[in-house]
């Protein structure tokens, strides 16, 4: 299973699950990263981290460590 951190810039994926049950997992889900939602990876910040995504029609920034917790499958 791949994660959001492994996508190529410009590619899209479908969310399968967010791992963990801590506050960070809850926060990721609150922001709309829930199963079935489509995410587009727009690219990294100039220094390589964090990463920029489009989800639910808005732009979201996640660090690599956070993106790794979101499991995805091809759209």
């Amino acid at each position, binding site marked *: 299973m791949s994660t959001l951190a492994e996508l190529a810039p410009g590619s899209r994926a479908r969310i399968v699950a967010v791992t963990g049950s801590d506050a960070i997992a809850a926060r990721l889900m609150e922001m709309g990263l829930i199963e079935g939602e489509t995410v587009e990876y727009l690219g990294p910040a100039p220094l390589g981290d964090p990463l920029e995504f489009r989800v639910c029609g808005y732009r979201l*920034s996640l660090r690599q460590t956070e993106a790794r917790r979101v499991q995805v499958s091809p759209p």
Partner: protein
Amino acid sequence: MTIPLVVALIGNPNTGKSTLFNALSGSRALTGNYPGVTVEKKIGRTRLGTRVADIIDLPGTYSLAPRSLDEMVAVDVLLGRQPDTPRPDVVVCIVDASNLERNLYLVSQVREVGLPVVLVLNMTDVAAEKGVTFNPGQLSERLGLPIVSTEAHRHRGIDELREAILKAADRHTLPATPPTVFPPAFLAECDALAAQLEQWNLPPLPLFLRQRLLIDVGGWLESHAGQQHSAELVAWLQQARARLADQACQVPAIEARSRYRAIRETLQGVVTRPEVPPSTFSDRLDRLLTHQLVGLVIFVLLMLAIFQAIYRGAAPLMEWCEAGQEWLADFVGQWFSPGPLQSLITDGIIGGVGSVLVFLPQIVILFLFIALLEDCGYMARAAFIMDKLMTRVGLSGKSFVPLMSSFACAVPGIMATRTIENRQDRLTTILVAPLMSCSARQPVYALLIGAFFPATYFAGNWLGVRELALFGMTALGAVVAIPTAWLLKKFFFPGETPPFVMELPSYKWPSPRLVFARVYDRARAFVMRAGTLIFMTNILVWAAGYFPGDHSRVDALQTQVSALEEEQATQEAERDRQTALKAKAELVLASGPTGRGMVQSQPELADSGRALAAAEQRLSEIETELEPLKAERNAERSRLLEQSLLGRLGHAIEPVVRPLGWDWRIGVGVLASFPAREVIVSTLGTIYSLGGEEDGLDDALRSATWPDGRPVYSLPVALSIMVFFALCAQCVSTLMVIHRETNDWRWAAFTFVYMTALAYVAALLTYQLSRAWFG
């Protein structure tokens, strides 16, 4: 008088909530802090038809899942559990129409607190641009909530909103049980929790809080709601969560899943979003501004511009401020004869007010930029770009702008930390911000480097010793801040790294009205709430430097000096007038023998020549009289300062500062500079009998000796003083702003203690090591 209607305003960040708040309350808001937390309490009064209403502006949030006491405030206000704040009659929930799905998540939570909700659809223009279409009537029907469409920045829809709020407040048709999105198995556990709390004789909790207890693993409530049964509650919750997991209701996923499912059902057929989003201007701009190279260059240029604007742009304004203060002190001072009252008014009161106002240029300029960048959407990108660098010290990208601003002045820098939502990150940033070398340290460095560092240049005049020393001193604070931030994070704010889950909002034109309101609000908050304390400290330090002591001799001398100086000014004016007359007469004479003119000008020339000589004679007499009088006055002032409380304290702490290579005079300078670092320069000017002047101070320092004749100052001593000032917390304004921003005296006290200890140890090491090195 009727009781005002209470309206809570809540919404996600970047939805135009502040604009709406200002549109409703006309930006006449009362600001304060909720007790015990750093959350700002903002209440604006407005009229809704015939009724008066108080609008409570709750902090922007994506969710009502409290992870800290700060985040608990919004929940407590909505539930009527917040002391000093009445329970709202109506909740106005503002949402970004271009991003309904995520925005409705908060709405879904807010509906469950059991208050009438009015939904405000804002930014419909952005939605249209993104190709999002919706049917507000149908949406209102499906949600069962009144909906008002607004364009808050254009003041559109505000009257409709006022009506809708009144209507919602009057309507007593709220369902007895608020709507729920949760499955029955989850609600059954909520009921079981209520029974369990009753069994422990704990006060009953509303359903909303019981849900939060079950969902928020490691949340604030879990560790605080149990009171004396805390451990039992945590164990009970763990079992309940295990039971829920067995029934396919795993927390916390159950909440997001249930809410988003309900939201999708609601939006099905009401809102359409294009499958492939159109490339908007904002998208193209973002590609440029977050580009690996171009984005970085633009960022660096922008930050340099902001820094220059605060550092240099504020300088002339601050000079005007100081000049105005001096003028006012002179103007008011002449109404009083020299004495304690005059000194209190000119040095204590006018000086104290000036020391508050002098910060306003920097605060206004910084917040002008911050408000512009925040409102147009770039601030989130700045955090996005700098995050990787800032994570190295355990902070996030949001700490960058406050810390950068602190290089000009920590006061606006600390005020700018409000954009950091995470409490731990915000406190760490506040605590290290005063280490950044601010403009008030420059006069101290300039004096000591000028007096004790050779003007030697290397590498073909490119590299100077003085410039290197100045650079080293400026960099020192930032270098020390890195391990300090790391240690603070490790020992004071342990726990997992807070997530950097941040929305990058669409770019838009900033609204001048909102920018102005934000700047005005910050400046006012500083003057009203930190200003009074800064002013009072100034008065106290003035008194410590004035009392005790018999000022009659110095006042008499000052009266004589003033009288002589007044005469000096008159004589100078007379001299200038006579010089002009003489020149005119000479000109007439030189123009040739034309009869009448010659006859008149000859005696005129002689008269003005005599008057001129008389004036010059008197001037030189005044000069000779003034010199010894001033010297005696300055010596008397120096003696009075030594005898004052401040001077005695300086003597008392001499044993403590001796290992740093300092004598009592430097000790007094450091004590007197508590209101502001640069005050040490004028204090040393007073101590060395220069009447507080800086001219000649470097010579005075070089020739100062210990009682046994050894020179006091040397390169190691200069270094030790500079290192101390680089790291110490000798700035009452910074400490007062820390107090105001953290809403806790202890953080200000902690900053003072840790920085003073750090400065002392560093100065001690500097002195002892450099003395061993330089001999």
